[in-house]
């Protein structure tokens, strides 16, 4: 249901392989995010972790996924949360809960503790665009 690709323990790409229903796809993405971010290879590693999530198959997301994004944003082991292929209603939900702003970055009116971490959230048109930012050359 979800495809998780991890290279060198640093870059993780999570995408729903086949979406037959929004709810099922969101559950799969949520479970994959929890499994990966709480795993030893992230929490016990001394390397920075860059995480890309493909949201392109979803016309909507749910509030529990926003909660998981919040945990990831506050996780010191994660250096970048790239949200890719965001559709209009998903963008509205993400903005409403302060995950991204108009320019696709973290909300600037958040509390200091949250603000310190929000710069790690970036929106990309696609996973490929996100990966390019890691290696602009």
């Amino acid at each position, binding site marked *: 249901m979800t495809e998780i690709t991890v290279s060198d323990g640093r870059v993780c790409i999570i995408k729903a392989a086949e979406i037959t229903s929004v709810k099922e796809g969101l559950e799969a993405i949520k479970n994959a995010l929890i499994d990966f971010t709480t795993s030893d290879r992230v929490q016990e590693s001394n390397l920075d972790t860059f995480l890309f999530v493909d949201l392109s198959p979803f016309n909507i997301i749910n509030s529990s996924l926003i909660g998981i994004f919040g945990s990831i944003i506050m996780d010191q082991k994660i250096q970048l949360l790239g949200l890719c292929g965001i559709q209009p209603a998903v963008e509205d939900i993400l903005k409403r*809960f302060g995950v991204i702003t108009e320019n696709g970055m973290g909300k600037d009116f958040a509390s200091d503790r949250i603000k310190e971490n929000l710069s790690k959230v970036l929106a990309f048109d696609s996973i490929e665009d996100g990966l390019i930012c890691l290696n602009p050359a």
Partner: protein
Amino acid sequence: MLVFEEKFTSEISSIVKFLNDFKKNYLQTLVEDAKLRDRIEYVVMEAVDNAHEHGNKKDPNKSIVVRCWKEAGLLFFSVLDEGAGFDGNIPPTRPGLDNLNGRGLVSIQDYSHSVSFNDKGNLITFTFRTW
């Protein structure tokens, strides 16, 4: 006018089936505007998730009932669970990102035209303007 009434067990597979059927069989024909369709789909999913997780405490022996009806340019939805109920007070502010939960009801209120609860607090009713 009643559009549908669906009863299903409080299990992920039943919820997935209901949401799929709702989107395919009703939402496409009930609402022309794609933006409003997304909002309704989101709110119905949140309300059903709340009923399953907080109302029925994920007990598969309990059920969820979703009703939809049309009246005077409004589309009404109600979601009933078999839980102990909720006090009906929706938090006045959105939770910060350091909170895992607490966004469901706030966003239901944000996206719908009106929200109300029965006295027991196990039946939520919300409406959307369809014109």
